[in-house]
């Protein structure tokens, strides 16, 4: 399918925080209460529309266990966006954010957009990390922040799409060198002919549908 840009994303964070479930909700619009555990890396893809342009997201969903860090590190290369996920019902997953962030900053392109995600927002009664704490952490480290629920789909679209918008803005501002694929952005075949049938920024709207 024709697209204007292709963005590579990587999803990182402790094991069991719901990385694969977020991806499944975003690509397939469904929730699996007991998801297989991810070993190594799994993949997802979806087309979205931003500013009337078709953008293909190529998403790398990584294993969360500490032991796999050395493997995960090699997957940052060429990522334009990262979703750093913790579980609002497990404080330790929040406490580990700093080391994740260090890893991400060290092994990725400096312009990589990082979205901090507090997942499982549907489990309010078991909450261990306040929303304000997530916001504060994000502010302090210059990240975008959202609380999501892969189960109810709340904010899932927004999390993926807002990250893409941020990347897109950086391209417009000329921060990203789009000719260098190490930045995680590829120009698609459709780029030359600006597609104006879908106009405006379409944040949370149905965009692209299933996998592409």
């Amino acid at each position, binding site marked *: 399918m024709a697209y204007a840009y292709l963005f590579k994303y990587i999803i990182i964070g402790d*094991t*069991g925080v719901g990385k694969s479930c977020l991806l499944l909700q975003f690509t397939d619009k469904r929730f699996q209460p*007991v*998801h*297989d*555990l991810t*070993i*190594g*890396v*799994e*993949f*997802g*893809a979806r087309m979205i529309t931003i500013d009337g342009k078709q953008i293909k997201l*190529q998403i790398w969903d990584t*294993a969360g*266990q*500490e*032991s*796999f860090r*050395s*493997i995960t590190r*090699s997957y940052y290369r060429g990522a334009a966006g990262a979703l750093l996920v913790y579980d609002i019902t497990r404080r*330790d997953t929040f406490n580990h954010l700093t080391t994740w962030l260090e890893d991400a900053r060290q092994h990725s392109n400096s312009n990589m957009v990082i979205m901090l995600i507090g997942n499982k927002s549907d489990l309010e009664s078991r909450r261990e990390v306040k929303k304000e704490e997530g916001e504060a952490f994000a502010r302090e480290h210059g990240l975008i922040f959202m609380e999501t629920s892969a189960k109810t789909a709340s904010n899932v679209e927004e999390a993926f799409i807002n990250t893409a918008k941020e990347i897109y803005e950086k391209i417009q501002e000329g921060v990203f060198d789009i000719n260098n694929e190490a930045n995680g952005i590829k120009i698609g075949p459709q780029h030359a002919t600006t597609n104006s049938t879908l106009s405006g920024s379409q944040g949370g709207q149905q965009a692209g549908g299933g*996998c592409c």
Partner: protein
Amino acid sequence: MKDQRSEKILYGEMTQRNRNFPVFSVCLLIKTVSLTGGINESVSSLIITNTLSWFFCLFRGLFSKKHIEPKSPSQNVPGWKLFGKVAARESPPKDSRTIQQEYEARAGKAGSGGTSPTQPQHGRRKNLDFEPLSTTALILEDRPSNLPAKPVEEAQRHRQEYDEMVAEAKKRELKEAQRKRKEMKERFKQEDSIANAMVVWNHDILPNWDNMRNTRRVRELWWQGLPPNVRGKVWSLAIGNELNITPELYDIFLSRAKERWRSFSETGSEADDGASLADRESSLDLIKLDISRTFPPLFIFQKGGPYHDLLHSVLGAYTCYRPDVGYVQGMSFIAAVLILNLEEADAFIAFANLLNKPCQLAFFRVDHDLMLKYFAAFEVFFEENLPRLFNHFQISNLTPDLYLIDWIFTLYSKSLPLDVACRVWDVFCRDGEEFLFRTGLGILRLYEDVLLQMDFIHSAQFLTRLPEDIDSDRLFACIVAMPMLNGNKKWSQVSSSKHKKTGK
């Protein structure tokens, strides 16, 4: 009114999908029944029959050989046999005119309002006739009196079309019956060969293991797949026990693990030497979290499932036995497959020894450099055997780590259907690590044509989530076609040269 609507829908569906015979017959069945008023009952019995037969198919292969007498030939006469429960029609097919007359006679009775004792209106089961008489009549039925009659040619054409449909459907059913018969025959043959193999393994091979394991005959039989009830035994023997673990030793480590869980859950901390509290906590927590994510569709390792505690014990005891390796994701799948085939202590012994093999140790210690050397060796044989696909992957930047990590960590138990994975394990026990990489090549060969058409992301998605209907014979045929020879170098030579090259 309601009836009319359902007729319309059913008829619409029938004409629209009459290429699909099962749907066709299901529609006929429902239609037949609805005329006598028992639609709900028939639909639910249909669902039950389907579910049962599905269950039956699912478990049939798992349990020991059961003989089912093949159907008598008379039952295989083509007819409107819909499901196993209902006897096939044995009377000669009626022509459509007779059918129509019969239907009219019935409809007349029903329409006259009198409830004749032989034709109860509410379609009690015993009176249900599953022959699609009424349905066929429905199609040929003259139109309601308030509509103009069909012209003769049109009526004739309809009748002819209808006859063709019926003939077509019959042909399909005949074909289907033949296919089923063939399938059953295959299955019996397969079960016979499993039974025979079982005898050979139990009486000839296992008692003379050391002398026979490397004979050509045994190796060939081994390749065919081990019969399920000797599988665990053969795996144990083949994996060996160079660590000299005894069941008593397992008990010691298990009680140590239990002690840790207890003290951990009581005080929320533990004062012991070794790893930091955080590490240990995450390891204990992680095992719990991962057990529920191990073969979730089987529902036997999840909390409350029959093997939940067993899996917990084996993994817990292992982390006490090998704190230097600890618990690493992927282990739960290996332990689970062993538990399915072996007694608890034997499963532990096989597990610990299996993870002590060089390749497994490299992976579970997540020794990245060493892993890269295994991938490099794999690529040598990949290029040798499948140069086109190798090139295609090179161009699209698809490196082998992306799919091999999952395959090797879980020994294919997560990525292949369990029965196929067990057969891979069989030969892995025979041939060692080389076979893991050879299986990888077999999978790539099996899907080479599809993969050649795919870009990076599609191939990566495909390989990290393989189709669920992989057939083991087809896969093994592909594996056979992947000789592990590079020039005259074998896997062990290539892989050790990779290991040396970078000075490790």
